[in-house]
């Protein structure tokens, strides 16, 4: 049927390679150009925060839920951050039903690290009763249509959902927690984004389409903080990179990160 293929036709692969040599891509983009982005927030009323991100034809939804939990023993004075991503078969014929596999878990952990490293969620401010009760922030990510670069789309959806999430205010009466009707924003201190490259031959393309991912030798993701520092790195697949290529990619990533962030700011009042 007309759905994406798991095997790319050889003639198509050759074309992509030939075009890359000339600095062109199948969909007409430049090598360092990202696809168009649309962000909708507050789409799920049952979630404290939510966002649907369209990155070209890729669609991802992220929902933020809040719970009051007992803190981890090693971080008694910090809130809890949990990221969970699922590549459900609804999103692509290449995803199989079943419990989360390596790819799902890798995706959630990259997003988790990017948020955690820069303390994007100020977990210190999510303590209710030190050592006893803290807020847990759950970020659940679901791919709805996989047309390449789920990492960047998931990161955008996560941060958009966090930025727009509303937390009930709390009142403590004799160590009894009372949730008030009044709501406040989550303590978000930074807007990290990820920028992902596909390495095809010796060329790097940013924000790869599905067909480019099918023929890529390696994948490289940078998490970039608001001030241009690195908050996560993830090399994927069995290809390799020379250090110089990594540094070259880093410079492009910093520029692209600003573009991603500008999109976020154009959809969300911060």
């Amino acid at each position, binding site marked *: *049927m*007309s759905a994406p*293929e798991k*095997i*790319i*036709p*050889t*003639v*198509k*692969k*050759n*074309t*992509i390679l*030939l075009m890359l040599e000339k600095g062109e891509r*199948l969909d007409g983009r430049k090598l360092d150009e990202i696809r168009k982005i649309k962000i909708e927030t507050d789409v799920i009323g049952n979630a404290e925060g939510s966002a649907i991100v369209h990155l070209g034809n890729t669609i991802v939804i992220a929902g933020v839920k809040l719970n009051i939990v007992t803190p981890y023993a090693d971080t008694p004075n910090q809130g809890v951050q949990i990221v969970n991503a699922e590549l459900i078969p609804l999103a692509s014929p290449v995803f199989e039903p079943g419990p989360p596999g390596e790819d799902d878990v890798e995706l959630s952990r990259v997003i988790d690290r990017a948020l955690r490293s820069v303390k994007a969620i100020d977990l210190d401010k999510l303590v209710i009763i030190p050592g006893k009760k803290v807020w847990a922030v759950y970020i659940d990510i679901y791919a709805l249509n996989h047309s390449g670069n789920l990492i960047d789309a998931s990161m955008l959806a996560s941060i958009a959902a966090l930025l727009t999430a509303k937390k009930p205010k709390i009142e403590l009466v004799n160590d009894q927690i009372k949730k008030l009707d009044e709501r406040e924003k989550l303590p978000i201190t930074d807007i990290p984004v990820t920028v992902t490259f596909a390495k095809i031959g010796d060329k790097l393309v940013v924000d790869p389409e599905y*067909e480019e991912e099918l023929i890529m030798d390696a994948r490289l993701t940078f998490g970039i903080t608001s001030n241009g520092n690195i908050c996560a790195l993830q090399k994927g697949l069995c290809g390799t990179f020379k250090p110089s290529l990594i540094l070259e990619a880093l410079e492009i990533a910093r520029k692209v990160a600003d573009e991603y962030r500008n999109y976020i700011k154009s959809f969300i009042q911060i």
Partner: protein
Amino acid sequence: MPIYIPRGKLAIPGDIIAEGAFKSGSGTYRINNRVYSAHIGIVDIDRENRMISVKALKSVYVPKKGDIVIGKVVEVGITSWIVDIASPWPGVLQIGEALSRPIDISKADLKKYLNIGDIIVAKIIEFDLTRDPLLTVKESKLGIVKEGALLEFPFYYIEKISAKLHELSRKLQCNVIQGANGRIVIVSKNKDVEVEAIKTISRIISAPSYIRKGFKPKKKYVR
């Protein structure tokens, strides 16, 4: 014997098209005295033969004996290749239908002849739902496509644009191969001609005289 949905109108699965002494043609079914639609499609009523059918606007490609299809090799076996032909069933190309002379299968590596990802133009020589469709490439104009551009559309477009494709092929002096399964291959020595052909076909497909506004076909192409 009332007709509820006249000829040329849109029917949805479950719609009662007519009641009475009508025969149920393709895209319809009959229970008791009623002919129902089984598809989203356009009603056709042959008054002479009292036959009602529904021409689906979107449907699944079911291979037919004699169809020329454009396939993609997805598996290399010991005595055959498995070919994706954009249908619910994979095509099977047996050695005897691919190679002109017999080979020793204990020694030969079929990958040398056709490998995963290769595009072929093939003909359906057998299909009856009980087993997967059998293909051949042993006729003129059939075989591997080494170079060219591949376009994919829902298969039911092909007959609508077939005449235009012939015209295009003449005008641009390129070879346009139409697969009954919705794939089109364009081959020309001049790559610019291929690009021109792709653009023209995309224009034909999305032209308002063919399809009304608001309709975006899925399309993919190479070169």
